[in-house]
């Protein structure tokens, strides 16, 4: 007879989706942080502002 264990299956599929989606979110956040750093490096005009504001 077929055991009733759909709950385990649903949990496994949900957790797998959560882990993969979480990693994608981490990658997006990291890429954004790096792009912001890049923008800060490239945009400031030559005028020297030592406080870096």
């Amino acid at each position: 007879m077929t055991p009733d264990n759909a709950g385990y299956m649903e949990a496994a599929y949900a957790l797998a989706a959560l882990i993969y989606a979480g990693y994608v979110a981490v990658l997006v956040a990291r890429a954004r942080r790096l792009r912001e750093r890049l923008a800060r490096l490239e945009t400031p005009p030559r005028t020297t502002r030592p406080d870096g504001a």
Partner: protein
Amino acid sequence: MIRSVSPARDPLLGVAVLAIAAVYVRALAFTPIEARQGAAQKIMYVHATSAFIALYVAFVLLAVCSLLYLWLKDEKLDRVAESAAEVGLVFTTVVLVTGPLWGKTIWGAWWTWDARLTATLFLWFLIVAYLLLRGAVEERGRRARYSAVLGILAAPLVPFIHLSVYLFRTLHPMPILLKPSAPSMPSEMVVTFVASFLAFALLFIALLRARYRIATLRDALADHEEAHG
């Protein structure tokens, strides 16, 4: 000039996510339930495919790129190795999370010290150690050399762990799809399995590329900051 791309606008990653979604729908709604194991058998479509990619793609890529790095000293190889390790860690984590859910209902235990389980767990530990090592070395050339040494040595270790635990005892079912005789699965399940494998392979490639671009951007920024104070 430093090129920047966001994973959020990466078409390859978008296609991969859609493919995974399609596989989820097919596996959950349009694939028959196995009579003896019940619905939990469908965990295999996520678990076994992720395991195959983690071990035979990510981990092998890590070892091969590590070896080639020590030979060719090309920073690109180091970045591929780094990316393969991290994406491989995500896949291995999924394997270690979904496996016990299947084991609990089929074997009656969340965890057993079976050869495959133990080898996978230590694969996970090794990749964590690899990433920790990378984080603990400041200088870029040294970081690449050290992590390459670890990436190479880990390759013979995993078979050793597998072999010693196998000698100890083993429970894990043998691979169903890749054995020499015809796969012992109804064709609908085989289609789902193969589709799932292709979708997760695509996800791996997309994540690897996104992670590689981040590594490139980070290194380019470091060069830039060094050059311009």
